[in-house]
Each structure stands twice: as structure tokens, then as C-alpha cells.
């Protein structure tokens, strides 16, 4: 069963969240690596935000959290996202406007009237 993710303030990135959740659940890095079928050094790199992964679903399942909650924290651009941006140059202009507006992701979400997932 998945739970709504409640993270402390110092947990900001995907790597922070995976480490925090793993430790919260009393799981060693090796135990989680084994569950999601990756090597311990790879998982360590993931916790250091040095790598992307396509194993987020498996990690979320092993940590009993909603995968969308982890995806929300994944600030790094995956290859398919990069391709999508490259194919849509207007997106870059939009992102520049957003940055210039100085508004946070949270403010933008509420401006769009969308409920945070």
C-alpha cells in the first residue's frame, strides 16, 4: 500500500528522498538495491543525485510510496524530456518567461489551478 509522502524540509532532491525513505524504513542501501535489481554503487550514486534511473517505479514500490511523489522530486531531465524540449523550441522560451517571473513551482501550480499530485 502506498502512502502520501511527508518529507522533512532538508529533503529536497530525489536522491535525498530515496535515502531518507530507505533509512526511515530501516533498510540498508544494499537491501534496497537488491529489491530493485540495481547494484549498491549505482543506488549510492542515485542517492547522491549523480544518475537518472528508469527504476523509479520499482524503487517507489520497495519504499511503499507513490511513484508520482518521487517523480515530482526528480529535477533532472531524462533523455525523452530532452528530446521533447528539443522538438518544441517554444518550451524553452516558456521556461525563460517562468524564470523571469521569479515565481516558484508551487505558485505556478496554484496559478494553473491544478491540484498538486
Amino acid at each position, binding site marked *: 500500500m502506498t502512502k502520501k509522502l511527508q518529507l522533512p524540509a532538508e529533503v529536497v*532532491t530525489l536522491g*535525498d528522498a530515496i*535515502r531518507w525513505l530507505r*533509512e526511515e524504513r*530501516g*533498510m*540498508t*542501501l*544494499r*537491501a534496497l*538495491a*537488491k529489491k530493485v535489481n540495481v*547494484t*549498491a*554503487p549505482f*543506488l*549510492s550514486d542515485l*542517492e*547522491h*543525485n*549523480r544518475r537518472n534511473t528508469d527504476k523509479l517505479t520499482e524503487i517507489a514500490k520497495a519504499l511503499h510510496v507513490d511513484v508520482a511523489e518521487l517523480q515530482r522530486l526528480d529535477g533532472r531531465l531524462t533523455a525523452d524530456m530532452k528530446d521533447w524540449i528539443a522538438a518544441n523550441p517554444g518550451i524553452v522560451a516558456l521556461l525563460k518567461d517562468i524564470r523571469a517571473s521569479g515565481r516558484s513551482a508551487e505558485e505556478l501550480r496554484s496559478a494553473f489551478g491544478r491540484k498538486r499530485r
Partner: protein
Amino acid sequence: MVENRIVAEAFNVEAFEKLLSKAAGNDKTPVVNQVRYLARYCDRLGARTIVCEEHYIDRHFLDEHALFYSRSLQPPPNHVRRFHVFSREFSDAQLSELLEESASAAGQTSRQICDDLSRAYLGFISIRPLRSVPVGRTILRRLEDGEPRDIWATGTHDVHLANLTLTIDGLAFQQQDRAVGACATAAVWSALSRVSRHEGMRAPTPAEVSQAAGRHVLPNGRIVPAVAGLNVQQLCEAVRSSGFAPEVVRADERPEFFVVALHTYLLSGIPVVLVLLGHDGDHAVTAVGFQSAAAPHPLLQTSVPVRSARMSKIYIHDDRLGPYARSFLHPLPRTDDFDECLLLAIETPRDAHGDELVGNGTPRAEDREEWVLDSAIAPVYPKLRLPARSLITLAELLGDLIEHIVGPENATKLGVEFYFERSGSYLSKLSGRIGLGCAGFLRRVALPRWCGIVKWFLDERPLAEFVYDTTDILRDEHLLGAELLRAVVCLDSRYRGDFQQIASIFPVPST
């Protein structure tokens, strides 16, 4: 006629500060920071009495003198004044009594007198006859912070004062003179003084370090006067010339591995030269010891539960301040603008009077000077070829097995640390730790001069040590380090059978 004069007097911070300055021929210009630091440091060590030797030939200064000062138009004297510091009160007359008592006593009693006095001996400070850069070779006792797990890469020194032989545990410090040596010279000289003595070799002098550093490359121009400082390549050359191998670890590749290496070498009693990058130029200091925090820092964790992730405070010899200065390790995460890096915040004086030069309690953020750690250079015995990085891999290879042995309920309590030790010393330290029935193990085990140890813990309790050959490198990870594993030492009787079973697979001797 050359004559020494040994005088004892009561210790007083201000008076000592002035005495040190005056000894350097400086009674007009302000007291230099290093002298202030040393006076306050001695005070915090509990100094009560100082004994001044007026005429002491220090071979380290003598070499500096020969290389540089003797060829000046107005050369200073070639000797130093040496100040011995004691935590025991005694008068000048009582010092005479001690010397006489020791001279007239039989060997055993004379040794007893020296041992008694050594317990109160806090070390010595050499003052060169150089007004602005007076602090020469100085060895002081380290100041404990009063918190657990202080680790120090220091060594024991015999010090001769008249007919007394005193002992002190510390690491040599001296101030750069900007003529023969720069900050990097002082840093590498400190580190080499420890490892040379440990290997039974003569420690190089600062002049020898400088000359070795500039033998082949001069990227910043001339070595003497030492205005430009040394780069990493030159530091490596100085280490190599002294008969050691420079093990260089970069901090910008994987900060957590850099910290593991630093932790490992300090734990092995090997001081490490740290190259620092700052706003106004580079700097070099010698890491002498460290202290660990209660909890690991997330950014310093690796794929195995390394205890080095708790390393928070590093004690350094900083020639701008003094010996055993405190610094704090701050790992910074990667951001959009910067790669991940390690900051070293060095505790600095709070005001012009230098009241907090030694540090007291937790300093304020503004009392720290931040540097980016660039690299570390550990002078290691040349046949110690296995780097600290490989010990992490070796632990990683057996990690699953160790977790399996202790079971999932204990797996999160595991910790691991690495160190190198001379095998003779390692085996002798096993006494009292491995119990009866170890004769068979001791007769079978074959170790090189330096062995690499992967030590596992369950919480704070030692669990087992895997002892590796360091004269080769790790080549084939599929063999789980079998080609290097030489012994398995179980330190927790509850798991003896499991570790003996592992040892029998490789197969290596075990306890």
C-alpha cells in the same frame, strides 16, 4: 666561546608571548600571530613552567641557514632558542636538583626521574633568530577537545634537555619563512617528519624538502626565496625524494571517496597534506587528526556504511596559525551553478588581540575561513600500493555476505572503516582481542610489511577485520578480493563460526 644556558621560570601567557618574541630579536614590532597562538595553546594545555635553552643547534634550522641565511650580507646566528613547557611547577633551583639527582642516580632511577617529568612535559617551541617568522621546529602535545574519538596521526619523540630524556607525542610544526619554505613546504615537511620516523628513517629538513620540490619543475619560478609556493606536482616530487610514494586523491571527483581516503590515512597514523583553493590563492596545510560526529553526513555516505561519513572536525597544522588548529568539513551538494565539493572551514582568530586563537567551544560562522578542498597527498611507504579507494571496493564485494551474517535486524547497525598498519604492530595489537587458541592463526598468517584492514562494526562494537595484502593492486573483482585477502579476524565471538567459514572458502587463516 659557545655556551648554553638553561633557565626555568614560571609560565604566564603574556610574559611567555613577550619572551618568545624577544628570543627572535623582536621587541618592537607587534607579536606575530603564531607566537600568540602558541602562548595561548600552552596555556590551554595547562603550562606551569617553562625551561629555556639559550643555545640549541636545530638541524632543520641549520639547513635553512646553510641554504639561505648564511649567504646574506647580515646573517643571523645559526642556532635557535628552545623553550620546553611543563604542566608541573618547579623553580630554577629545583631544576638544578633534578639534573643532579638524575646524574647521580643509577640507570633505573634516572629513567624513573625522566618518566615522571615526561608525564608533565607538554613539548617544546624552537624560536629562530628571524624577527617576522620566528617559529621553528615545534612539537607540542595535542589538545584534546574532550569529545569522543579523537584520532591523531602523531608519533612519540625523545627530547634531550641537558642529561634528561623526555618523551612527547605530537607532530612537528613550523612556520614558513618565505625564504627557504612556503606553506606547502611546511605542510609536507610536517607529514614527512612523522612517516620518516615511523619507518626508521631520518626526517628531511625544510631545506631538503624545498630543494627536492624544485629539482625538476619550476612552474612558478625559483624555489629560494620561496615566494611563489609549490604545486601538487612539486609536492609529489618532494615526497618521492624522501623515499615515500605520494598517494594523491582529488576532492572534486567523488567527495565521499576523498573523505574515506583522508579518514583511512589519518587512522593509519599518516598525516595528509591538504591542498586548498581560496579566493586569493591556494594554501596547503597538514591534516593531523579528526573527530567524528554522532551521525553520518548524507553526502559522505557510500555504497557501504562507511564510518568516515561521520568525520566532521579535522585538526590541521596551519603555518599561518599554529599546530592542531581546528577546521570543519562541509560537503556541498551539486547545484545548477556548481559541482559538488568539499569546503574546509578553518577556525581563525576573532580579533586583533588573538584571544580565541586556539578556539574555545563552537565558533561563530564569521570566525571561520572557507577553502575549497582540492586534493590530498598522503606520503606512503612505497610498497603500500593498494589505495584507500580499493579498500572500499573490497568492503563492497563482501558487503552482502556481512549483512547476511548479522541478519536483516542488525544490518542497519553495520559500519565499516579502513586503515593500514605495519603487520608486526597489527599482530601484536591482537593480544587480548582474539582470545585463546590463536597460536595456530599466528603461526600460519603471512603478511606484508604494511597490511590493509577492512574493519566491520556493529554499532560501536568491533565485529571482524579482513586483512589484505597491500603490495599488489585489486585486479579481478569477480574473485571478491581473494587474491589480496590474507586473514580474517573475528572480534565478536557470536559470529566466529560464520567468519571462520568465510575464511575457509578463500582459504586464509582466521581466528
